[in-house]
């Protein structure tokens, strides 16, 4: 493994790990606040129970999100000093604003988690709202950085490859900014909302405390389902921006070789890079032209229009895109179904089949997120900043990068396993306490 590949792998693993906790950190505070608000409004104790149960899990997941995010901010220098040297002054501004959003988040999370009996009801609820807002804001800012890497603006290029005349504010309004921030925030609510709904649906199928889980399911669906329905629309918007601003990425994710009008859409299939053709795909005539430009006669550039040395790894990008879209469509379908049942029968728990379906799609939002980021990041290769800085020029000169890569991989695999076991036992704890009818408060946690 070359040092460059090791660095890329370490970055990918660190980000792939962090993003799960980040999404949860964006959406869980909203769910907690909604539950608490329902409790304060209705006096229904099950909502309060729910808010405290969710808070426990969130405390664990949030801490892991915070430490893995710290790793990322150092890794920008540990792995990609050449990138930071050039891009630091421009992407540093959104990163700094993100830093303040983190502060808001962390401060009020402390107040929220540990302040139940120390601050007034109104302050407590407000703290929760601030945590939720801080999470969404920080995600927005960090995605602006990524959007800039995809579609850099706000500078002139000097002869030595450095940027002059930089304008970080213009840099934050890059062409991909709106598309990516919207898609990312919806992803966080869709993935987390549908996953929480899935867990509670499964507990309901198993016959656990209906009062608690029904409320949990409704709240989680109220957050997750609309986002899941909107996500394919937002994805279509993303694809159109990509078509306009990153034609190589579009060609790779669709595995389109030939430049043509009435370009077909490939569903599934396997891109054969050597022969420059896509096998076994279902083709929808003019589908791609229609999706990417909303015009069946639009011309779509194929990979052959670009020199080979700027092709991203086509197979990975194409497959990841198929996975995201498949997962997205499945989620949207289940979300619509839930909406229909809620509208027609006023009670989503009345359909056992729906419950099973919701339980079945539990992980899909996170799967789609990972896949989507692979499309975005691998699809940008060989560039770290599109058209400007090659990834190979940005990597650290330190040799032996395979060692830190393996170390951090092992660390994250272990940590991920421990977190999974812990969350599972917190869920089981909730489940068993309610099935035995014991609703008394838990033991001291300290």
């Amino acid at each position, binding site marked *: 493994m070359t040092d460059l590949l090791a660095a890329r792998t370490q970055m990918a693993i660190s980000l792939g790990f962090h993003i799960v906790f980040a999404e949860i950190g964006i959406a869980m505070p909203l769910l907690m606040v909604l539950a608490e608000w329902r409790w304060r409004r209705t006096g229904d104790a099950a909502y309060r129970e729910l808010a405290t149960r969710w808070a426990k899990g969130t405390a664990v997941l949030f801490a892991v999100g915070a430490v893995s995010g710290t790793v990322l901010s150092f890794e920008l220098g540990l792995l990609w000093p050449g990138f930071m040297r050039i891009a630091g002054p421009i992407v540093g501004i959104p990163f700094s604003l993100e830093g303040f959003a983190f502060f808001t988040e962390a401060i009020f999370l402390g*107040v929220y988690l540990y302040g139940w009996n120390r601050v007034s009801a109104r302050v407590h609820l407000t703290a929760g709202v601030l945590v939720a807002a801080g999470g969404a804001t920080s995600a927005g800012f960090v995605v602006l950085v990524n959007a800039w890497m995809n579609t850099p603006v706000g500078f002139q290029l000097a002869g030595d490859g450095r940027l002059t005349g930089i304008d970080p504010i213009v840099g934050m309004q890059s062409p991909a900014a709106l598309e990516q921030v919207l898609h990312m925030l919806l992803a966080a609510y869709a993935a987390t909302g549908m996953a929480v709904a899935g867990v509670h649906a499964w507990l309901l199928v198993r016959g656990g405390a209906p009062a608690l889980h029904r409320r949990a399911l409704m709240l989680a669906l109220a957050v997750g389902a609309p986002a899941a329905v909107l996500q394919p629309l937002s994805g279509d918007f993303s694809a159109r921006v990509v078509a306009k601003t990153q034609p190589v990425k579009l060609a790779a994710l669709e595995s389109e070789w030939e430049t043509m009008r009435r370009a077909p859409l490939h569903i599934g299939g396997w891109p054969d890079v050597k022969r420059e053709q896509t096998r076994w795909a279902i083709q929808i005539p003019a589908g791609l032209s229609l999706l990417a430009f909303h015009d069946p006669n639009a011309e779509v550039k194929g990979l052959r229009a670009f020199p080979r040395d700027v092709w991203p790894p086509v197979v990975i990008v194409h497959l990841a895109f198929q996975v995201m879209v498949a997962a997205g469509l499945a989620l949207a379908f289940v979300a619509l179904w839930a909406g229909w049942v809620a509208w027609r029968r006023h009670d989503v728990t009345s359909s056992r089949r729906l419950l099973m379906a919701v339980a079945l799609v539990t992980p899909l939002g996170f799967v789609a997120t990972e896949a989507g980021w692979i499309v975005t990041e691998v699809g940008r290769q060989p560039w770290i900043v599109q058209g400007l800085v090659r990834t190979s020029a940005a990597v650290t000169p330190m040799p032996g990068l395979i060692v830190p890569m393996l170390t951090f991989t092992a660390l994250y695999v272990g940590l991920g396993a421990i977190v999974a076991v812990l969350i599972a036992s917190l869920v089981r704890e909730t489940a068993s306490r309610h099935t035995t009818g014991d609703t008394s408060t838990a033991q001291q946690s300290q």
Partner: protein
Amino acid sequence: MTGVTVGLPEIVAGFIVVALNAYALTGGADFGGGVWELLARGPRRDAQRALVARALAPIWEANHVWLILVVVMLFTAFPDVFATLGIILHVPLSLMLIGIVLRGSAFVFRSYDPRDDSVRRKWGRLFAVTSIVTPGLLGMVIGAIASGAVGDAARRLAAVHAGSPSSDGFVSIYVRPWLAPFPIITGVLALTMFAFLAAVYLAVAATDDALREDFRRRALVAAGAVLVMAGAGLVAADVYAPDVLRSLLGGGWASALQLATGAAALACIAALWTRRWQLARVAAAGQVSLILWGWVAAQYPWMIPSTHAIRTSSAPAVTLKLLLMGLAVGAAILLPSLAYLYRTFARAETTAMVNGEP
């Protein structure tokens, strides 16, 4: 140290040190908490540990963000400095990150693992051990920068890349700058200072008199240890980093800072002796801050001695201005919020509740 020119780069660099100072006083003390977790002794052993846990739980994540702010401000305003530190100090920074990950995780796992006490005790031990290793590495990183070894290695690396023949291998560029006597002593000094701060804060936070006395005794011992380590640092500087020592003791500002540091140290010991808790806390924080600023003054005008001066390694003025504006707006939100957080959890009462569980 001669005249000080103050322009945008110096102002931003100053704020970076302020953030680092805030991190030392808050996040640093949280590391110190881990030290006392490990060293919990005597009849009130469990109560000591519980106090550490209760004092840290609501605030450690907010405290930790100061470090992130330091990193972010550094790469925004001094990208080349950040890049160079990332290259030369890759190994200790990576080890520090592993420490940060394990410590934060172990701390929450201990609080929330629903399994039995023995599992929780294991998490507690991991939390304590990583609380010692991590700030030690942070201190080593600072020591490596201050001693001039990082700048030196960076220059040799550049020479290697320019194709000049050299005998520099991996160890001489990526290991020796930080694995050396002076950085090791600064590492231990950082750890001692953090343990000292934590003991003072815990004495203030305790609501039980016996517990408070436990931490008063620990604070006094730690105060002595800080003095010893600071002395050791001066001796080591004389041998390994004479430039640092010359500026540390060189007239003007530097000596004033040294004098003030000594005064704060004495004030803290006196306050602990006479049980004036609030005063002890202020003096302890002052002492640690002054040691930090002493280093900064000694190193001025260098970010990395001999290669990166504040003036010549900063980002363009637009970036610095925007960063300062961001800081102003951010601080207007941040400082009242932080004050509110600390006020709400000032006393780690035994009735403190976790997640609303009575």
